[in-house]
């Protein structure tokens, strides 16, 4: 991906945010007017442990360029243990994606509390930049047949 196109490239980014911490953190980022790119679209889930790997792969299949999952900090889960399971699941899934040659920077997990508006906005800014540098997601697109 040539550098000059990063400007015009508007990536599709799906952010799964848990209801109790990260979604509230996003709300606080909003009310604090802490900007982050419009490319990020948030889907609310009750807990990071609700995020099924199938959702992530589905997003890529449908053309997403990056997927980020945000949850409560380990130890602070509203459901006490949900994010611990999410952490293991995502660790393994991300490792697998990298193993089959998907850029590992297309996925990220970040723990953002309800108070961390700055962290939320900074995370989204840096993630969008990261995806812009990677460019369009071609490896997970329609590539069944060998070129």
């Amino acid at each position, binding site marked *: 991906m040539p550098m000059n196109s990063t400007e015009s490239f508007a990536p599709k980014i799906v952010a799964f945010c848990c209801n109790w911490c990260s979604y509230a953190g996003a709300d606080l980022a909003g009310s604090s007017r802490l900007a982050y790119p419009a490319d990020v679209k948030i889907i609310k889930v009750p807990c990071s442990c609700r995020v099924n790997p199938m959702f992530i792969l589905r997003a890529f*299949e449908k053309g997403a360029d990056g997927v980020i999952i945000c949850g409560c900090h380990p130890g602070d889960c509203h459901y006490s243990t949900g994010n611990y399971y999410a*952490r*293991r699941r*995502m*660790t393994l899934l991300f490792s*697998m*994606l990298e193993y089959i040659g998907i*850029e590992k920077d297309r996925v*990220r997990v970040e723990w953002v509390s309800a108070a961390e508006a700055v962290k939320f906005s900074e995370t989204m800014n840096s993630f969008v930049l990261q995806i812009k540098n990677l460019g369009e997601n071609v*490896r997970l697109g329609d590539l069944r047949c060998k070129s």
Partner: protein
Amino acid sequence: MQELKNRIKQLMEENVAQRALGWKKGEFGYDAQAAFFESTDELDDFVYNGFCGANLSKYMIEACKKEGRTIICLKPCDTYSFNQLLKEHRIQREKAYIIGVGCKGTLDISKIKANGIEGIVDIEGADMFSSENLLKIKTVYGDHELAYSDALLERCNCCKGKEHMIFDEIIGESADTVSADRFEQIEKIEQLTSIEKFEFFRNELSKCIRCNACRNACPACNCRKCVFDSDKFDSAQKANSDSFEEKMFHIIRAFHVAGRCTDCGECSRVCPQNIPLHLFNRKFIKDINMLYGDFSAGSNCEENCPLTSYSFDDAEPGKI
């Protein structure tokens, strides 16, 4: 083999069990397949040799629905799957009489054929209980010889061990067949660049015809209805559709069996397109061992699966 057959016959005659689950000889002698033997008469077709690679554990689910008890023949590695199924309540222990059968490694017919051997008529020396390490292959073009150990399935080269994890009795001895490191191939792939990895897997997965043989053979893939057949995720799909689905299917399949896969290697053995599917499962096994401590699914019925447990200081996603 005769000893095994006799014992099964005896058990059935003594009414210890009502039927047996074993292998039946196929059309060519190298294509033995899983079979139920409902009466002692049917046992004539019973075989047990190097071509009996099929892991019978999964058939136990069917057997449990039948009346009475079933004798099941399990090679050492098959017992892990059996345990795993027990742990998941898919089968009942009391419905099975387990004969742990000795194993000196199962054979890969494509490896034999890869030696330029064609038109095979008969193969001698595949008996599991003989110590002979020589396969005598009769073909329409003449006779060939090949060392037994050179024709083993990849999975047997990195065998989990000779011990049966669960059994009622053991017949025959097992041999050490380990000649390779289980994770060597995984590590090799991990060393590749991102693009090389992608090319490798794209090439392999592009062969997939979605015949579902891997899913059908896999003892961990025992869902009554696969998510890829149900409308639960809006992911039901016909075979061989477009795009990304094969990748999604295989990644998700590997993810669903992660922490439950015993690395029995059936997926790769049955794949008609020879896709090395075990490379997915084994990657998860390697990661799990490294991150959450050594874990061997099916080595017992108690230990919690790594994906349904956690510790406070687990590794962070993407940071390994």
